[in-house]
């Protein structure tokens, strides 16, 4: 099920980023973010589809689980943003994002937990070619894992947040 989802996700990213050819600017960035689930390090590619809207996609990994607990914790994300303020050096954007992450928490039974996140937030950036910025998200986190009491998959919903610092290169 997870593999099917990842395959569909890749197709969606390819479609979004290669469908529109009227590009004004692209940006790649690296980020560190603190969230309920872990501290993440990631990379993001953003494409402007017109003067007001951008689309982005990226990949992150959970630092604590991946580096300190020997448990690789990947996350993929996709979203869009809208310019609220677009000055020469300073941008302020409203942003929305969906992400999917998963890790194996119990090796002896091969049990995974999956997280779907839907977030709204704001993003600001300062600079010319090289920019620094921050992104703040709040939203819903949907946790999905096996429940041995009921012998079925269980879904649990909670509030989530992300505080992110970005280093961006525009080209």
């Amino acid at each position: 099920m997870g593999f099917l989802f990842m395959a569909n996700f890749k197709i969606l990213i390819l479609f979004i980023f290669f469908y529109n050819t009227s590009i004004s600017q692209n940006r790649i960035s690296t980020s560190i973010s603190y969230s309920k689930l872990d501290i993440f390090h990631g990379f993001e590619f953003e494409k402007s589809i017109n003067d007001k809207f951008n689309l982005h996609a990226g990949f992150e990994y959970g630092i604590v689980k991946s580096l300190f607990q020997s448990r690789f914790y990947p996350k993929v994300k996709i979203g869009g943003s809208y310019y609220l303020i677009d000055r020469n050096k300073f941008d302020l954007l409203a942003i929305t994002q969906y992400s999917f992450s998963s890790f194996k928490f119990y090796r002896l039974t091969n049990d995974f937990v999956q997280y779907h996140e839907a977030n709204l937030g704001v993003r600001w950036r300062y600079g010319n070619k090289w920019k620094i910025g921050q992104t703040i998200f709040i939203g819903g986190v949907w946790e999905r894992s096996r429940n041995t009491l009921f012998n079925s998959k269980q879904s649990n919903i909670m509030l989530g947040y992300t505080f992110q610092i970005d280093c961006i290169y525009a080209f």
Partner: protein
Amino acid sequence: MRFKILLILFIVVSCKKKHDYPIDIIGHAGNGLSISNSIYHANSLEAIELALGTPGVEGVEIDLQLSKDNDLWLFHDMTLDDETNLTGCVSNLNNEILSTAFYKSLHKERLIQFKNLNFSLYAGKTFYLDIRHYNACENSFIDVNKMISALSVEISKWNQVKFIVLTNHYDWLSPLITADFTVYYEIENVSDFLNTKVNNIIIDGVISRSTNLSKEEISSIQSENKKVILFNMRAPKPIREAMNKFPDGLIVDDLKVALIEKSK
């Protein structure tokens, strides 16, 4: 020859032994008492069933208080004011009022009675019952005989679940042991345990903050056929440090972090 050496090295390096510490992972108040990641409120039915349904979790610790009607309710704090829609103490309210209580959390979980837990679902699991001996609203101690009576009625119904009574009140140890419960004493240091030996109080185990007992002290307690449970761990490092002391169990607030450490 070089290829054979490389092949052997590759096999040795790439083989991952599945290591399992022989330690019980126990959910603190269900799925975590004071941790921002806890989905459901501590001591709620949802938190307990989420914890017990997590693969690798052997039991939960829950907090029990007597109501005015002498029934057992799951609740942690001294008063209801901060966490629920009610005010006052559990011990001063009857069951009818307590049945209207809910937590001020996202899911608005209800307060539950011990007898409303569906123990037939929890076969093979262990419940650590942290019983409250003090009424903060009246500055008085609860009658231990009422607590014992309430516990006896409920525990005797369920053979497929293991119950361990936890207390930090020294004066309650003897009555609880006489009532034939499995009793663990919450200690601040190993001297508290030695004190029970001196006074011939035969407890079944101890529970302590992880930082209060060393590996050697834990080993010495275990050599007397007593179990040792540690608590007060949230992050991976303190959980790992606690596991390396080889207690019998860990009461943890983040179950998934603990399970990762256990099965590394």
